[in-house]
């Protein structure tokens, strides 16, 4: 990153923005996590992370993020392929707008949407019941780990469509024509050419979804009142609750743990992006 004299100037607002809203808070959280309640330097906030309830929370959060990212990235990639290959340009633009809306839905409104649709007295619950399928007859409930997976998939799949579509559009017609001319079957083309080219983009998108799912907060909180232990929810009770008044620094330590996990996901994303970029050059 080298700049010509003053050419960085237009970027100054961006640097100020990320500095103030990203780097400064990270610094603050990290420093606070390294102090005990009396303001002395200490690593004591980090010991609880390694065992018991807090480690369990990290495991649950990561498990939820991996499961939802796998489902959403596969579903999303499949839909993207179908759309790119078959949809008219008008339909594509409609799908794109709709996906953008759903991908940005989240938080309490999204949770409520699902409660209104699939809750015990939800619209779809009633319709399905009318047709003879009582979704609550078995063990299913929206207010559980499975329920949260379902709801997350709802906004992550459209997100996948948005982030993965450029990669599929980047598959050049010449490549498939060239391989067909050389006698390859359609299947061979996919196996030997398209999938290897798409893989880095797919992995990159996966990491992006993972990071999104890992940090989501309000949706799960509204659906589980703490009965599914996710790290952001626990941080919420520690730093913004009404009950536990003396463990905000532990919340900060949990946040640093999250930054660490998200950091790994971002490194994976950057690596994948670089590999993907190879095919866009030339």
């Amino acid at each position, binding site marked *: 990153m080298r700049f010509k004299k003053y050419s960085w100037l237009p970027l100054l607002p961006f640097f100020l923005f990320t500095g103030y809203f990203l780097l400064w808070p990270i610094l603050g959280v990290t420093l606070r996590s390294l102090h005990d309640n009396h303001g002395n330097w200490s690593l004591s906030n980090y010991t609880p992370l390694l065992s*018991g*309830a807090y480690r*369990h*929370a990290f495991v*649950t959060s990561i498990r939820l993020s991996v499961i939802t990212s796998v489902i959403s990235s596969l579903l999303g990639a499949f839909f993207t392929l179908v759309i790119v290959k078959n949809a008219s340009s008008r339909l594509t633009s409609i799908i794109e707008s709709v996906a953008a809306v759903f991908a940005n839905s989240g938080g309490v409104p999204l949770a*409520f949407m699902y*409660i*209104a649709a699939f*809750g*015990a*007295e*939800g619209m779809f619950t009633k319709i399905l019941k009318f047709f003879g399928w009582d979704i*609550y007859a078995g063990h299913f*409930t*929206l*207010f*559980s780990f499975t329920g949260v997976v379902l709801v997350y998939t709802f906004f992550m799949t459209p997100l996948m469509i948005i982030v993965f579509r450029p990669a599929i559009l980047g598959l050049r017609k010449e490549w498939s024509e060239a391989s067909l001319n050389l006698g390859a079957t359609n299947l061979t083309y996919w196996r030997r050419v398209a999938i290897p080219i798409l893989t880095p983009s797919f992995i990159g998108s996966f990491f992006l979804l993972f990071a999104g799912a890992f940090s989501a907060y309000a949706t799960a*909180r*509204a*659906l*589980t*009142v*703490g*009965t*599914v*232990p996710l790290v952001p*929810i626990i941080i*919420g*009770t520690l*730093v*913004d*609750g*009404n*009950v*536990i*008044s*003396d463990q*905000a620094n532990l919340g900060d330590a949990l946040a640093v743990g999250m930054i660490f996990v998200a950091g790994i996901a971002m490194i994976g994303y950057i690596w994948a992006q670089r590999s993907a970029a190879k095919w866009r050059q030339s």
Partner: protein
Amino acid sequence: MRKRLLTGVIAATVAVTSLVAVSSSQAASIDYSKCTDLKSCGGMDALVKAAQKEGKLNVITIPRDWANYGEALDLFTKAFGIKIADDNPDGSSAYEIQTVKTAPKSKAPDAVDVGITYGADNVNLFAPYKVATWKDIPAQWKEASGRWAGDYYGQIALAYDTSVTKAPKSFADLKDPAFKGQVAIGGDPTGAQEALMSVFAANLASGGTPANIQPGIDYFKGLKASGNFVSVLANGQNLAAGAYKVSFSWDFNGPGAIASAAKIGKTIKYVIPTDAVIKGTPYIMAIPFNAPHPAAARLWSEFLYSQNKGKTSATLGSVKGLSGSKIFASIQGGQNIWISGAAHPITEAAMKTKGLAINPPAGFETPAGATVVLPTPDQQTAAKELLKTQWPNL
């Protein structure tokens, strides 16, 4: 040009300094940020005058439909002509403390209403002030030098949509299969006081003691296993969507909840369970040291702890020409406003002895002969530790 500007700045500075000097010399006799009771604040007339001069009161995290706070806010403004700004009405105790620590002085709160441990843990943030009714506050719920004191309690009630097949009266009733998928709680007990006290109440109903809430946790485990408990957040919105029908709630949120449910055509009822009456440890009130309107803050405090029976915001007429103490004596005190909102004021026992307590709204009466249990702060700490590991694995 530069020289002229400099002269201007100097002139302005001199003007401002002399203005400040004039105004401070007028009110120099009493420092309202330091006076510690009504007497040292110069009496009610002087306090009201000083508060009116400040003209404003900053409160924080006070929902209007919480324990009838809306009436307290309206009456205070109507009686004294002091505007009240309420920052982030639905925030948390942690948010209030954070704001006291970090907000610029003009936006800092003049008074906080927080969970009790937030007072004990942050005692150095608060100025000592003892209200006129100080001696009526039980000793265990106040800080000896006056830095904080409990203001009101709630009791855990069962709140239910009247469309349920049978009206619940107790915690035991909720185990009935008729309530499958219908019972919800108002939050995570490690984050919401109301939910924590709900577990204490369930515990008591299940034969547990406040010292060990395991039976209470087991009660919820049982409800979850039978499918009666749904982990949806109990609030008006989710009730409206039919996501649950019965929840555990502070009684003082009842009148507000009943009214807003009625607007969307739902009828809900509150009942104090027959098998457990848990009174939550009180929320506490405190005046931060850096309160931007110290006189108004102290007047607000006197008002909230006043046991007067008197005019409400609806019945109060013109107060023009009346002295501060006359106005104060004519209006309903905060302690009775809480009763009218189905809450339990901290000086309730003394008020009853003195015959000053008004009657609670119909339907919120504590069952006759019920033993009311108050979990102590230590018992709550023990409960939180247990819940931290067990609630997530319910």
